[in-house]
């Protein structure tokens, strides 16, 4: 759909080659459908690396899941032993044989019983195999391992010619065949079977690193088909084989805009979206005793309360201990556990290698199909940083493709700056909450902040939190010159601020009263002056009237005088 978006090459774009699914979880993904249909495939590897199991799983899955009858020709193990071996994988071999969907032919080669006198060929083998195939209409064939023939016959020239003919014959018959071969020095198989099988070669490997064994699988060659070229870890346990590919080479996971609660009210509001994004990966890092597990447990509880399934991988505590511990802060997980919404998978980190853990987790996730996953803690995984990183990357990939919200806790140092290892983790994580302790005034107090949260605005504050009987509780923020104030200092600061506020109120009241007094005084003064002014005006008016009277009198006098003067003349 997004033609303009350049992502990793689409492995499925090659022209389709018919494939026969193996039913091995993960393997069919990495080979984009399974083994080449109608062609032989060589599965090689050292002793005990799972060749026979791989081949048997291919065969038995073919019968039970894809309705393709199968023939096993074993050159090493007797039919009864084989049946017993795979019975542990819940395959009813005897039943399948009775139903004519499976034939097991054990080819016993005892060199001491055979005398060679003249020319021979291996037509007998062809006849046997052909008869087995025809008797049940088999579509799948396993040869485990024809290299044993080299121990039984001295004429290597004849053997090689016959093996070449055998693989060609298998192809002509159109059966999908798996041929196993023991790993030899300097070449893939001891007797160079890879020379004859050119369509598909798979190498199984069993490596010990730091006393931990990891099984790995690699598709060396797959003619006519694209395939994953990496080494993939695989797992053999009671459920058979599962291979763990990087499920998607690109980063085109579906994204969700919906937020899920962190389980802590105050924390939700620190995220612009109101919680973690669904399908995002969240890292909670912090020192010992900072409440990482509790924060993770809050999330698990919140998810379960929403009716979503949650899978909790614990690498430090057993389920009972964990449930007891988080109950002390008011998180009760046991009802969710009994309701089947919550599942614990706990294991010692050193019990398996990284890849094995990953493969197990993958399988558990497949089976339980959770909406949320908690991994507590990822720091329990010891190993080279590159490998830990790669493991987590694949883990996150698995989770993201399924839209699972994941919370990882990580134990780290107390430094304020993230440690070197965490820098590597950061790129994998969408949201990062850092828990730290702030030491001041003889106290250690817990605080958290959101270091990053992709795709949403988030609070920049460092918030103190306390662990109460009702769970994790975020406190109001008090900042002082030295940073955030916590514990007693926060209380002292609160008291101080209250006192200051009261003082400010008192001060304001006093000022108001002062003002009132002054205003009254001034108003009185204004009144006095007004009165004085009025008096002055009255006086001025009286004086003016007097003056007019005087002028008028003078005028009258003059008239009288002139009149009297004229009368005198």
């Amino acid at each position, binding site marked *: 759909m997004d033609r303009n978006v350049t992502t990793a090459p689409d492995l499925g774009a090659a022209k389709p080659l018919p494939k026969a699914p193996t039913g091995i979880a993960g393997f069919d993904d990495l080979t984009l459908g399974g083994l080449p249909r109608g062609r032989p495939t060589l599965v090689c590897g050292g002793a005990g690396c799972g060749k026979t199991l791989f081949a048997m799983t291919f065969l038995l899955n073919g019968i039970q899941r894809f309705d393709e009858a199968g023939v096993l020709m074993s050159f090493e193990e007797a039919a009864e032993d084989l049946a017993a071996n795979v019975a542990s994988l819940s395959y009813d071999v005897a039943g399948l044989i009775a139903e004519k969907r499976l034939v097991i*032919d054990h*080819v*016993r*080669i005892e060199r001491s*019983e*055979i*005398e*060679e*006198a*003249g*020319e*021979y*060929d*291996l*037509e*007998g*083998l*062809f*006849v*046997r195999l*052909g*008869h*087995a195939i*025809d*008797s049940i209409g088999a579509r799948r064939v396993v040869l485990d391992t024809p290299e044993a*023939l080299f121990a*039984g*016959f001295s004429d290597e020239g004849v053997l090689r010619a016959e093996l070449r*003919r055998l693989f060609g014959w298998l192809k002509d018959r159109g059966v999908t065949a798996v041929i196993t071969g023991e790993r030899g020095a300097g070449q893939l198989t001891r007797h160079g079977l890879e020379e004859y099988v050119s369509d598909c070669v798979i190498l199984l490997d069993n490596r010990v690193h730091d006393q931990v064994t990891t099984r790995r699988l690699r598709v060396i060659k797959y003619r006519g088909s694209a395939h994953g070229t990496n080494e993939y870890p695989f797992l053999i346990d009671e459920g058979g084989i599962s291979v763990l590919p990087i499920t998607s080479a690109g980063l085109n996971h579906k994204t969700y805009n919906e937020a899920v609660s962190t389980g802590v009210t105050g924390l939700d509001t620190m995220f612009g979206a109101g919680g973690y994004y669904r399908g995002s990966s969240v890292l909670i890092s912090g020192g010992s005793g900072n409440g990482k597990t509790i924060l993770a447990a809050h999330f698990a509880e919140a998810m379960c309360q929403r009716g979503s399934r949650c899978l909790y991988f614990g690498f430090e505590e057993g389920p009972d201990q964990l449930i007891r511990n988080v109950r002390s802060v008011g998180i009760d997980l046991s009802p969710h556990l009994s309701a089947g919404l919550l599942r614990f998978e706990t294991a010692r980190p050193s019990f398996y290698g990284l890849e094995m853990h990953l493969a197990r987790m993958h399988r558990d996730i497949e089976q339980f199909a959770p909406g949320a996953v908690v991994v507590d803690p990822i720091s329990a995984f010891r190993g080279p940083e590159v490998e830990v990183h790669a493991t987590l990357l694949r883990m996150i990939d698995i989770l993201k493709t399924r839209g699972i919200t994941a919370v990882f806790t990580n134990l780290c140092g107390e430094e304020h700056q993230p440690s070197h290892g965490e820098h590597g983790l950061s790129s994998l994580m969408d949201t990062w909450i850092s828990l730290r302790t702030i030491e001041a005034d003889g106290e250690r107090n817990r605080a958290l902040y959101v270091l990053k949260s992709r795709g949403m605005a988030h609070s920049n504050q460092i918030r103190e939190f306390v662990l109460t009987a009702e769970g994790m509780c975020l406190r109001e923020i008090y900042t002082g010159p030295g940073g955030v104030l916590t514990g007693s200092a926060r209380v002292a600061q609160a008291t101080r601020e209250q006192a200051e506020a009261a003082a400010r109120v008192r001060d304001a009241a006093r000022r108001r009263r002062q003002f009132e007094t002054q205003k009254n005084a001034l108003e009185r003064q204004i009144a006095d002056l007004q009165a004085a002014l009025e008096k002055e005006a009255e006086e001025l008016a009286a004086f003016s009237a007097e003056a007019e009277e005087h002028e008028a009198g003078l005028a009258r006098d003059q008239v009288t005088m002139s009149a009297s003067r004229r009368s005198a003349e």
Partner: protein
Amino acid sequence: MTDNKRQHSKPYLVITHEDAAQNQQQEADAAASEHYNLRLYVAGQTAKSAAAIVNLRRICEEHLAGRFTIEVVDLLVHPQLAAGDQILAVPTLVRRLPPPLKRVIGSLADTERVLVGLDLRSGHHK
């Protein structure tokens, strides 16, 4: 090589030299009288199988005169017999009696090795 010359010929289960009644009688006390019950597995009529039949008869006439039975089994006709008798190579000669079971593979051109394979080298050579 010889494979393409293999023909899906008429089924044949050849029992030579003895009639059936005598055969049964001899099988019954084979161990005591050292009767040899031999079965030769071939796959079609190839040069190798023809040579093996001829060679086997010759060796038996020479070393086991009067006390052998040869069955020739064509696996192309009776493929179900291949698994039961653990046949891989053809031609394969199986000594069914006397015990223990012995196998000789090949066209049986090397008489010495056939005799060793049939445990005839020590007791019955001329």
